[in-house]
């Protein structure tokens, strides 16, 4: 047993750190560390820097412009980039649709879409959930009917994250209603500028516009935009979901958030002393740090097993549940740490270029909105209940 990185892995970590020191724009990392809004332009600027370095497509084979890092290298990257406050890549293009295109797409689709993802020319969003199909994704109803060289798509998708920025959407659509739900689904790539597509914002309880509804009314999609075979989309969808699930535990993000919490608790005062010295509060922080330590090692065990050629199994679902709970606990503690100042909604301070006086703490304004916003963590990417169902089926043998 050896829990240390190899010499090569340590050298890689140094290389990552040197890159982040040199290339990560300070204004962007300040936004990430302070839980502030990132603009489309912020994401694109960072993506360009990563692409130039050749580090944008960490999951792709080298022949398509990926870096083909080992699981441990990817982990080092996640950990370090979270620690430095680098934005996480918006995953829908590079980490979701691209692996599907690489594995199941035609040569033409690969030639067309992969370079555009690398260059940032295309911004993808995900058309999976529907108003009637959430946890029960296979019950989706958006219809695609083939007419000559096109599919005619009608229906509605929802919870489409950052769909307002996207020019492409990958969709699960129903192409066959005669067979079992899972067997009549196809995977379509759709240009958002096609006539008949309407994007409507969904404002969440924190006042943010992050997710959208997408409506399709007689939308003509060329048949060459079908990925793989008609009616086999469920297989591709599940393949994609395994990609989605890895990384949802957000261990690196939790570590950064915990650091943020400790700094906050050092600045906040309770009974004339820094809050972090308060016995009950410091114990709460200690408890979540301990849980995070355990989850961090669980994460490394999964990574080591994948590095050795294994497949992540029930453990990654368990880790999604624990990891999201830990992040939510950290958000809860940050909210508690600001006491009465959890109540004001000081929207102007959410913008990094705000130049006025801060109401209480330079990092206070985003804390309560962030706490509420991150209730989504236990809902999306397969709700924690669904993850537990997956684990039950995989290992309990009941």
């Amino acid at each position: 047993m050896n829990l240390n990185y190899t010499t090569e892995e340590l050298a890689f970590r140094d290389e990552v750190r040197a890159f982040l020191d040199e290339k990560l724009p300070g204004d962007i990392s300040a936004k990430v560390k302070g839980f502030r809004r990132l603009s489309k332009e912020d994401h694109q600027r960072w993506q360009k820097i990563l692409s130039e370095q050749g580090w944008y497509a960490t999951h792709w084979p080298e022949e398509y412009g990926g870096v083909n890092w080992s699981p441990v290298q990817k982990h080092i990257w996640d950990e370090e980039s979270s620690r430095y406050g680098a934005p996480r890549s918006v995953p829908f293009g590079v980490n979701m649709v691209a692996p599907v295109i690489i594995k199941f797409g035609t040569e033409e689709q690969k030639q067309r879409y992969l370079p555009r993802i690398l260059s940032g020319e295309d911004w993808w969003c995900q058309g999976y959930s529907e108003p009637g199909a959430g946890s029960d994704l296979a019950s989706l109803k958006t219809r695609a009917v083939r007419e000559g060289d096109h599919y005619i798509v009608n229906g509605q998708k929802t919870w489409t994250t950052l769909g307002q920025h996207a020019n492409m959407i990958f969709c699960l659509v129903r192409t066959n209603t005669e067979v079992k739900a899972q067997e009549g689904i196809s995977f379509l790539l759709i240009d958002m500028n096609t006539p008949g597509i309407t994007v409507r914002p969904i404002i969440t309880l924190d006042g943010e516009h992050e997710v959208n509804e997408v409506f399709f009314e007689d939308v003509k999609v060329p048949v060459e935009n079908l990925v793989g075979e008609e009616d086999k989309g469920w297989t591709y969808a599940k393949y994609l979901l395994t990609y989605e699930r890895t990384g949802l535990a957000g261990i690196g993000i939790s570590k950064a958030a915990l650091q943020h919490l400790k700094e906050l608790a050092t600045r906040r005062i309770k009974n004339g002393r820094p809050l972090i010295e308060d016995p009950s509060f410091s114990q709460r922080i200690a408890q979540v740090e301990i849980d995070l330590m355990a989850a961090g090692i669980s994460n490394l065990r999964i990574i080591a097993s994948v590095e050795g050629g294994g497949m992540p199994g029930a453990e990654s679902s368990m880790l999604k549940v624990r990891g999201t709970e830990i992040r939510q606990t950290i958000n809860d503690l940050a909210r508690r740490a600001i006491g009465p100042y959890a109540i004001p909604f000081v929207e102007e301070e959410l913008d990094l270029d705000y130049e006025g006086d801060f109401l209480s703490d330079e990092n206070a304004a985003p804390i309560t909105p962030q706490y509420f916003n991150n209730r989504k963590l236990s809902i999306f990417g397969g709700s924690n209940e669904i993850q537990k169902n997956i684990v039950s089926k995989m290992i309990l043998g009941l």
Partner: protein
Amino acid sequence: MDFRLNEEQQMLQDTVARLVRGEYSFEKRLEFSESELGFSADFWKQLGELGLTAVPFPEELGGFGGTGVEVQSVMTELGRGLCVEPYLQSVVLGGGLISQAGNSEQQERWLGGIASGELRAAVGLQEAQSFYNLNDVETRAEKSGDGYLLNGRKAVVIGGHCADVLVVSARTSGDSRDADGISLFLIPADTEGLERRTYPTIDGSKGCDLFLNSVQLGPEALLGEQGKAAEVIEYQTGRAISALCGEAVGAMEVACDLTLEYLKQRKQFGVPIGKFQVLQHRMVDMMSELEQARSMAILAASVADEPQSDERRRILAAAKNVIGRSGQFISEQGIQSHGGIGMTWEYNFAHYAKRLVMINHQLGDDDFHLEAYATLLQAS
């Protein structure tokens, strides 16, 4: 033993319920909340006309002489409607402080208006460094002429943006966090040197931080005995905790109802999701939390207007601890039971969820009250 409301109390609660049902749809609430005032002046006026803003005041002020139970009857229904009017701040806290500590002139000047709803009070008791400890007062009041000169800042004064009078604590002697040496002052809103930074709150109402920049007050501004306000503040925040428990219970009832309704109508995998045992158990846990909160609210109401004692302190700390935790539990688990829809601005559940968590940040969160309770713990 009888835990039910008596006939008059029930009538009072029904009156508020009818008013809220008639005037306070979800859509209207959003409008009120987004208006410049941050609530409905018209609804406030109706509260006054129906005598509801006078509930805790004596009959000569048009009131009921109501105690904790009557105040909770009102607050529970305001909680059910998620009403954003500053009833707690003006009627319960502001009115309470002036009733307890005010001399006859001060009572005459302010209480009639507060009881009729024509005047509104707000209270500035916490500070940037105070966390929830209301004895942690650094705002200074120095003798100046025959009055006082105030300098300092009061934090998160809900309703302070539109109050006619502010009841503010300041230190006339002693060190930060000494109970001794805290005094209360009545500051009319237009007093020179009083500045506000107004903001909306997460849960849809409005408040401000108050900046006291050399605010010169006459001797008539001192509310109660100089340096002896800590006990008054503790007593009145105790009454307010009981009132807040009522509001929380009302909001929790609706949050539970909405969640249960959703479990019945939302279908996945061909059945209502309420058929899944994991969601049934969660719903039962939410309702058990509500029952615990209800019990503690009733207990809090029973001591709210009793003379101060360690027993009263213990009960109120326990009650606030329970409603803080149960409110957050129902908020979080209710969102989880709904899924994404529970997090959307357009659906009322999300607004109940926000209010319930924010109640935990008013008058001390569950951690604060657990500590308070622990210091009063009886060994036997």
